[in-house]
């Protein structure tokens, strides 16, 4: 069983982001992590490999040279080898997807896993686009996977229920929060990661056609309002919720 998991380097989701003058995120002193949904995908790959009693988990990232740090973190978690496709950051999902597809078209993997979306730009594009470019079936927003004979069963969390769908392998699956709570890397894993192969090469990335024009923090929330105290305040509260907040 050969599983490719694609991951992205993103700012720590708990970090307080500052916007630099050049209208992009100020990376100075910022901690970067594997995008959390991608981390679920790595965990899913590791669990599938363990359930199968063997196989190979390859982690791939398109990004700047610094993304090697996140690939090594995935190797420390247990992935077998890593490929970094170096390219400048882009908001054009198709540029990233093409770079990945060019690398993966001859990978002959059974499964291609992605996080359902990147934690930084939230676009949910790359997984499905890679599936399209590779001509593979794609199942998105999957909380749990089960391997069948030449196929994969995917549990999807849909509005108000759980949907189980099946796709033949090879397939592309995007993972959401569900069964795959990421493990800690072990100290052994950290030591072993240094010796695992990490291939770095130029990505086959075309020009980006989507440009960032402006980035700003959301407007500050207006301060809360104290309507009154005790039971007497309830009618006024209800009126405001209905007429002003339109919450009722």
């Amino acid at each position: 069983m050969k599983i490719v998991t694609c991951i992205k380097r993103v700012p720590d989701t708990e970090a307080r982001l500052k916007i630099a003058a050049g209208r992009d995120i100020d990376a100075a002193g910022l901690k970067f992590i594997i995008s959390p949904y991608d981390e679920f995908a790595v965990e899913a790959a590791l669990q599938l490999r363990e359930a199968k009693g063997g196989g190979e988990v390859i982690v791939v990232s398109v990004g700047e040279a610094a993304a090697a740090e996140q690939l090594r973190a995935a190797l420390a978690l247990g992935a077998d080898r890593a490929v970094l496709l170096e390219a400048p950051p882009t908001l054009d999902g198709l540029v990233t997807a093409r770079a990945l597809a060019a690398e993966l078209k001859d990978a002959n993997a059974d499964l291609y896993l992605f996080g359902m979306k990147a934690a930084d730009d939230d676009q949910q594009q790359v997984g499905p686009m890679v599936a399209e470019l590779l001509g593979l079936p794609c199942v998105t927003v999957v909380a749990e996977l089960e391997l069948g004979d030449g196929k994969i069963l995917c549990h999807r969390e849909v509005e108000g229920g759980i949907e189980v769908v099946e796709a033949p392998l090879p397939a592309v699956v995007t993972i959401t929060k569900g069964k795959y709570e990421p493990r800690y890397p072990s100290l052994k894993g950290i030591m072993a990661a240094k010796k695992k192969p990490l291939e770095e090469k130029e990505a086959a990335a075309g020009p980006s056609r989507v440009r960032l024009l402006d980035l700003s923090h959301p407007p500050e929330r207006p301060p809360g309002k104290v309507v009154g105290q005790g039971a007497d305040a309830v009618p006024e509260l209800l009126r405001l919720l209905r007429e002003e907040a339109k919450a009722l």
Partner: protein
Amino acid sequence: MTHATEEQQQVRELAREFAERELRPHVERWDREWALDASVLPALAELGFFGMLAPEEYGGMGFDLPTYVGALEELAWGEPTVALTLSIHSAFAVSLLLRHGSVEQQQRWLGPLARGEVLGCLALSEPGAGSDAAAVQTLARREGPGWVMSGTKKWVTNGRIAGLAVVLARTDEPPGSRGAKGIGAFLVPTESVGYDVGEREHTMGLRPAEVVTVQLRDVRLGPEALLGDASAGFVYAMQGLDVGRLGIAAQAVGIAQAALEHAVAYAGEREQFGQKLRTFEGMQFKLADMAARVDAARALVAWAAATPSTRASSAAKLFASETAMWVTTQAVQVFGGYGYMRDYPVEKLMRDAKATEIYEGTNEIQRVIIARELYRGA
């Protein structure tokens, strides 16, 4: 510190993440219940923390001391007793076996110690042998090819849950005739008949760690129990303490860092006289002094780990423990009345910090050692 390798950084991050998610949320309850949850040490064993100083061929990590102290600091930031337990295990069981154990002894113990299947502890202190450690009276009498051990050991941290106790006992005849040169170090399996665990101490802080008295009642040991030279146990104990004190120093930095962070957060939120505490210059000076001392202690511990020596270990332990005591006391002061209450986390850190000024050699003893080293060879 300033040149932490990527590996040191990753190990630190793992320890910090574990501390944040698995230790921090429970420390108040563990302090109240006098025990860690049973799952904590096995989880640390699974991740490899029991084997930090054990070589790779025994399933350990073979870490250098700078990597090791970084991990201990972060774990102590979460729960200081966890760092204490790992420090004792690493300094006195793992590193002494590595340094003085025979091949057979290493093969028997290092694997299980590195994997955390066996926890190591130290039985050195006695009712009449504290700072004067060479005054131990526990006897190891030769009998046939082996030994029979009898005596009372005090303040044995983890004496009940450990599987292996490193015990210092007199081997000279008549007992006491050779002073510090009449002591051997023994590897005593705690399952041995006659290794009896007595009363638990009621400690001021570090409450999740169990500190007990151990009675050794004619414990029969084979020749394989003796570590190295039968007259060199005291020297081995001092060598173990050189590593142990680095661990205590790292633990103290973790405690101080935790107290600093709590104080910074509180002063950033709490308002008095219509403004945040952090806007008062008196508060700013206090927080700045706390931060600078923590930085200095961490740098000293990193230096001592990178260039290990008796003097460096003693200096790191002395300075870091006094930093921890001072910083935690200031943190309680920052919290004011709330700081004195059990509901807030800083009074516990102050209680925990006090131990670091006392155990593994009081700070008075550290000063004696440093002064002696200053005149070494003079």
